[in-house]
Every structure is written in structure tokens, then in C-alpha cells.
């Protein structure tokens, strides 16, 4: 029995660790967590970090891509968000976490083309190692995070959806993200700080 115990413990550790490996994106940030900075390649070839923009009061970080129909449905709304909120200190930072080997339309060259065609006025970054998406806990595209500056740190203030109607922007009844930003810019916690939306699974690298 005494010999069996370490063996069982080893089995348990093994079982637990395999569980953790299988569920990489299950955790991620909650509202109130400090968001780690990153350094990712923008479509213009330059590296971008949250710390670069000293004037930013915060960011609207959106995990999105070229290929997902939901991301496409929200593309214009993301462009409009940047137009409206960059001027108020909350610019958009778009991050494409998809593995181009799994989603061929999401290659860096395709991202460059998309950003050019649609005249993105915000960074469109490639999360090549998918480390940032995992760290944030992003599961789908589009998946949004509002970050608020606190000194040199950025704190997650809202996670989730843009609004309640992906198909038709004109039929939207509740603008979840904008409502949250209104609260946040008034110095209050967002009254609804976490929402869910349908989207495409992030195309994780095949093990």
C-alpha cells in the first residue's frame, strides 16, 4: 500500500496536468484583472505594445479575424468604434489570433490586404504564438476586452460583445460595449461588465 501511494499520486498529477494542457483557454482574464502588455507585429511591420500610446486612457482590444462571418458582420462596427472612441482616449487594437495553417485566409499577407482595403485606422496585430489570446482567455472572434489605464497598468473593465444583434446593426437594441464605455469614462465600473456573443472558435494551432 505504501508503495502504491506515490504511484497513485503520480497518476493524479499526470491526469491533472493533461487536463490543464487540454484546456488552455478555459481560464483567462476576469473583469478587474490586470492585463499583461504584449508586443505583436502590426500589418505595417512594426511591433505594437499597449505601453506605446502614452495618451491612451485605455483600449478596446478586439480579437478578430479576416475569415469569420461574425467578425465580418462586425467589421464596420469595429471601425466605427475606433472613430468614435479613439478621440476620447480609447482606441481600438485589433488582434488576429488564428493560426493561418488552419485558417488560410488569416495569413499575415491577408491581414495586410484586409487592413488596407478597409482602411483600418487602428493596429491590426498578428498573435502568431496565440499567447495573447490564451492569456486573455479569448475563445472566439470577435471577442472584446475594454482595458482602462491605472498608472502604468491596464485593468480589464469589460469583456464580451459589441451589441445584441450581429446580423443587422440597425436592429440593435442594446449596445453593450458602448454602455460599458459610458460608465467607464465616467469613472464608474460598467453596470454590465461581461456579456456573451456567438462567434467563430479561434483557430488554435494543431498540436
Amino acid at each position, binding site marked *: 500500500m505504501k508503495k502504491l501511494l506515490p504511484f497513485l499520486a503520480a497518476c493524479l498529477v499526470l491526469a491533472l496536468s493533461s487536463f490543464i494542457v487540454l484546456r488552455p483557454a478555459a481560464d483567462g482574464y476576469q473583469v478587474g484583472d490586470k492585463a499583461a502588455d504584449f508586443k505583436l507585429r502590426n500589418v505595417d511591420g512594426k511591433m505594437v505594445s499597449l505601453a506605446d500610446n502614452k495618451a491612451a486612457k485605455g483600449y478596446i482590444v478586439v480579437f478578430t479575424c479576416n475569415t469569420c*462571418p461574425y467578425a465580418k458582420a462586425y467589421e464596420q462596427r469595429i471601425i466605427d468604434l475606433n472613430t468614435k472612441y479613439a478621440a476620447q482616449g480609447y482606441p481600438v487594437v485589433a488582434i488576429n489570433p488564428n493560426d493561418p495553417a488552419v*485558417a488560410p485566409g488569416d495569413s499575415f499577407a491577408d491581414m495586410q490586404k484586409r487592413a488596407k482595403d478597409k482602411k483600418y485606422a487602428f493596429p491590426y496585430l498578428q498573435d502568431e504564438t496565440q499567447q495573447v489570446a490564451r492569456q486573455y482567455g479569448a*475563445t*472566439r472572434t470577435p471577442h472584446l476586452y475594454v482595458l482602462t489605464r491605472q498608472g502604468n497598468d491596464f485593468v480589464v473593465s469589460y469583456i*464580451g*460583445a459589441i451589441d*445584441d*444583434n*450581429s*446580423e443587422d446593426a440597425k*436592429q440593435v*437594441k*442594446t449596445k*453593450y460595449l458602448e454602455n460599458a464605455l459610458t460608465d467607464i469614462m465616467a469613472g464608474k465600473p460598467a453596470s454590465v461588465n461581461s*456579456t*456573451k*456573443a*456567438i*462567434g*467563430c*472558435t*479561434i483557430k488554435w494551432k494543431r498540436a
Partner: protein
Amino acid sequence: MMNQLKSLILAAAFLLLALPGQAQKVDVIKLPELQKRLSRPTDTTYVVNFWATWCAPCVKELPHFDQLTTTYAKQKVKVLLVSMDYASQLDKKVKPFVQKRGLKSEVVLLNETDPNTYLDKVDTKWTGALPFTIILNNAKHKRATFEQEMSAEELQKQLQAFVN
């Protein structure tokens, strides 16, 4: 008499041939209807797959799910394929897709617009990514969810744990 028999056989053969091409119906349902279906206290194991015609991994794994309807025909297993396509795409996309693939399982389209209000009511573990699958057996109080694409082997393995 012989002629009658012949035409009967012909008619039967025609029916058999026509069956796979027959337009499978796709009911458009609202959330309460889906909730009702998923909360029945029966010993039938439900395999509920949320998919969409535009979702590549969903389309890839769909045959594995549809195959269960044939494989488990004699067991208390029911496959329900819930399309998350927009209701406006029912005739343009969903019905032609279902017909072309010759799906044998029941297909419904969930007609709701605000995921933030309905996702949690379907399952709190669902963050909204597609595909999403629930395997449940209410009589046995068992439920498992998968927010990822599943292989045929993985699906069989998971389902076995419910049927045995």
C-alpha cells in the same frame, strides 16, 4: 395482377430513391422550445450540436454527429442539430445544405438575436464559440459540454459514457 405488382414495385423503388433527396424539414424554434426539449426527464441521451452553415469546423464535424442517428438507431439516443444561422438564411442556406448533405438527424434553427440573453440559458459553460455540443441524459442526471470541434472517435467515446 402482374402488371399491378410491377407498378407497385416501381412505385416503391421510386419512393426509396426519392427519399434521400426529399426536402428535410427544418423547424424554426425559439429558446423556450429548445429549453423544453432539453429538460425532458427521459432516459434518452440527447446529443445536441450547435452549428452553422458558415462555420467551417462545424461543417467538418457534422457527419460524425449525423452518423450517430444511424449507429445508435436501436438505442435511446437522439441527435438534435441546432443551426445557429440567421432565420433569414433558412431557405437560402440552411435547407439546401441539409438537403445536399442528406442529413438524417433532426435539424432545427434557433431563431434568437441576442446571444447574451440566451447562451447562459442554454448552458452557462457556453462562451458563444461554435461548434458547441451538449450530451445529456436527464434521467441519469448526466451532462457534458464541448466548446470545440470533435473527432468521430472523441464523440463516440464521450457518448459511450452516457449509453452504458
